[in-house]
């Protein structure tokens, strides 16, 4: 046993060095045209400049990084092997700490604006997190549960946002009147897009949704009379507290501050908006948790697992997919309405592909299908860039890298454990 180990070890060392050298060679080839050389603007004309030290640093990083990685893999090899054997999801034993963590987070989110009442920035950031949580939950229905890759989710977000912006500025509709209409409109868009494409293979859907997201943006930019073009739509009506506006004083009657006998403060609205999105998000969560236990929720997951088997059991797979697509779109639409109401101004800038990618990253990172994972991932992806502001230009780069690494490391995401939605009572586990 010992001799065997010793032998493998020596072989490994030289092999590891060779392997790392190969990686370094590849790194040189990749690095020369991108890092080693670059073109700079020299008075209207391009000039080639060099950055050899950077290239050297890059190649060295790759060499030693590879060595370290392989070393780590060697160390954990045993662990990895056992994990692979039981790869298809462990039996879902309930994890009480996760549940308690969930309740803890819920409690924290309820008292957050009170705890940070003097810190508007924290409440604002928390609101942003909640918007992404809601978007993540919506997309999770499509990607995580039904297994449909939607790369243009931001389009439905845009439909919601523009619905509210237009209906409120043109027709004077308020937030609560618009909410269901915008949701229905987004769902309708989802159905119109999904109907021709959902019967096709998965990767076609991905491209079509990607294209759809682009098209919506192109239309918003160019159809100036309708959408205000690149300038967007401004002075959108902000939501009021059951008819009481958040204003210093109002021409016709009471404001929120005067009604409750408070001194006007701009924080009132910030806090109200926070609670509004919290309520919307919690309702979304409740809604999805319920749907998951209904036939339609089970059907979504079954379609994700095996479409052919679903057909053989008499399930209309296209309809099942459409329902997931429409419900996901509707939730995106709701989030869009809130976004427009919160910002008071929207433009096509807010609905670019990187936004879709962010939401997808939240779902993937969190663990596809896991509601709780989405919360963790959304918090991470919003708060980390806020903490390292100087880092922000690397944000998308790190996103991309994280998406690859997480898929390779854990194709199921951070929380990949699935809780069964039906349990036979009186039977083990």
């Amino acid at each position: 046993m010992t001799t065997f180990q010793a032998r493998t070890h020596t072989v490994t060392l030289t092999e590891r060095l060779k392997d790392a050298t190969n990686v370094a060679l590849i790194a040189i080839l990749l690095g020369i045209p991108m890092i080693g050389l670059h073109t700079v603007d020299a008075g209207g004309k391009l000039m080639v400049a060099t950055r050899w030290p950077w290239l050297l640093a890059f190649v060295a990083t790759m060499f030693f990084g590879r060595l370290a990685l392989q070393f780590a893999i060697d160390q954990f090899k045993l662990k990895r092997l056992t994990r692979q054997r039981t790869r298809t999801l462990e039996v879902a034993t309930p994890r009480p700490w996760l549940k308690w963590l969930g309740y803890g987070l819920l409690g924290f989110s309820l008292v957050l604006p009170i705890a940070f009442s003097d810190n508007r920035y924290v409440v604002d950031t928390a609101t942003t997190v909640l918007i992404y949580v809601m978007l993540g939950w919506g997309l999770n229905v499509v990607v995580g549960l039904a297994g449909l890759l939607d790369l243009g989710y931001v389009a439905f977000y845009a439909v919601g946002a523009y619905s509210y912006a237009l209906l409120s500025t043109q027709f004077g509709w308020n937030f609560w009147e618009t909410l269901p209409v915008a949701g229905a409109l987004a769902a309708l868009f989802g159905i119109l897009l999904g109907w021709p494409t959902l019967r096709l293979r998965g990767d076609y859907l991905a491209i079509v949704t990607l294209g759809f997201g682009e098209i919506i943006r192109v239309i918003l930019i160019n159809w100036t009379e309708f959408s205000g073009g690149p300038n967007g739509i401004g002075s959108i009506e902000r939501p009021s507290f059951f008819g009481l506006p958040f204003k210093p004083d109002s021409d016709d009657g009471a404001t929120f501050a005067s009604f409750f006998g408070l001194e006007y403060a701009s924080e009132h609205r910030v806090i109200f908006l926070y609670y509004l999105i919290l309520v919307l998000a919690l309702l979304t969560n409740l809604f999805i948790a319920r749907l998951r236990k209904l036939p339609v929720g089970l059907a979504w997951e079954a379609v994700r697992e095996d479409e052919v088997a679903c057909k053989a059991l008499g399930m209309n797979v296209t309809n099942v997919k459409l329902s997931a697509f429409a419900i996901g779109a509707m939730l995106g639409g709701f989030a869009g309405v809130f976004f427009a109401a919160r910002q008071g101004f929207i433009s096509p800038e807010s609905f670019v592909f990187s936004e879709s990618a962010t939401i997808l990253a939240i779902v993937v990172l969190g663990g596809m299908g896991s509601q709780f994972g989405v919360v963790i991932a959304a918090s991470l992806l919003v708060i980390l860039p806020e903490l390292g502001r100087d880092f922000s230009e690397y944000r998308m780069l790190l996103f991309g890298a994280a998406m690859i690494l997480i898929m390779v490391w854990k194709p199921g995401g951070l929380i990949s454990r699935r809780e069964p939605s039906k349990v036979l009572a009186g039977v083990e586990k």
Partner: protein
Amino acid sequence: MGQFIQQLINGLTLGSVYGLIALGYTMVYGIIGMINFAHGDIYMVAAIISVTVITLLAALGISAVPLALMVTLLVVMAFTAVYGWSVERVAYRPLRTAPRLAPLISAIGMSIFLQNMVQLTQGARVKPIADMMPGQFNLFTFDGFTVFLSYTQLMIIVVTVVLLAIFTYIITRTSFGRQQRACEQDQTMTALLGVNVDRTISLTFMLGAALAAIAGVMVTIYYGVVDFAIGFVAGLKAFTAAVLGGIGSLPGAVLGGLIIGMLESFWSAYYSPEYKDVAGFALLILVLMFRPSGLLGRPEVEKV
């Protein structure tokens, strides 16, 4: 009429570029049955590298056009092929047995990564270069409208046709092509027969990247400007072209590219340039609805 023919020529040129990129999609799809989501960005990387190479050659005083063109093509193809290889190695190979969604997502991650990497290392600014092959043939004049075919346009169209012929030959006649088609049918069995499946797949990605590299060089010379974001839309259109022609079919990819290119060119000229992307996309939806196997593709029966 003159205007019409001019748009036809412009459309053919543009379509050839889409066709070249679409060939890469189709080849990769043919072997692993999956879309290479990072392919558009590989094309973008190639275009950026070609800017560097062309600038460098000019600085070195190599001004003979054929020589400069050959060197640029070879150098860019070589570097881009390494990028193609890396994409497969990092984003696809570890996930070959994973659920279908996983490699798609890792490839999207790769696409985002490449785009932002180029933005960071090469800058976000548009990169202009001088016209490498100025000059044109004035074909004829019609109603005072002179129809022309620039040298660059001619080169692009010729290169595309030649490459299509070469690649069709490679896939249908050589042993590499046979190995590739065998992998498409059954990877396990192909491996048992002694074919190096990993190598075949890697080589396919590299060939696809090389084709994208040619497209990247052509576009750089044709338009004279490139930036880090061109991969996204071009990739989308080339994919549309591949589906339109029938994904998996090489002539189909080029045919699809030509159709998309011409649609776009005519749409811009006669309708509205702003909505040319919408036209291509609408066409994609129509094709998927009425002929999901594309113009030249074989309808596929799912084996159960």
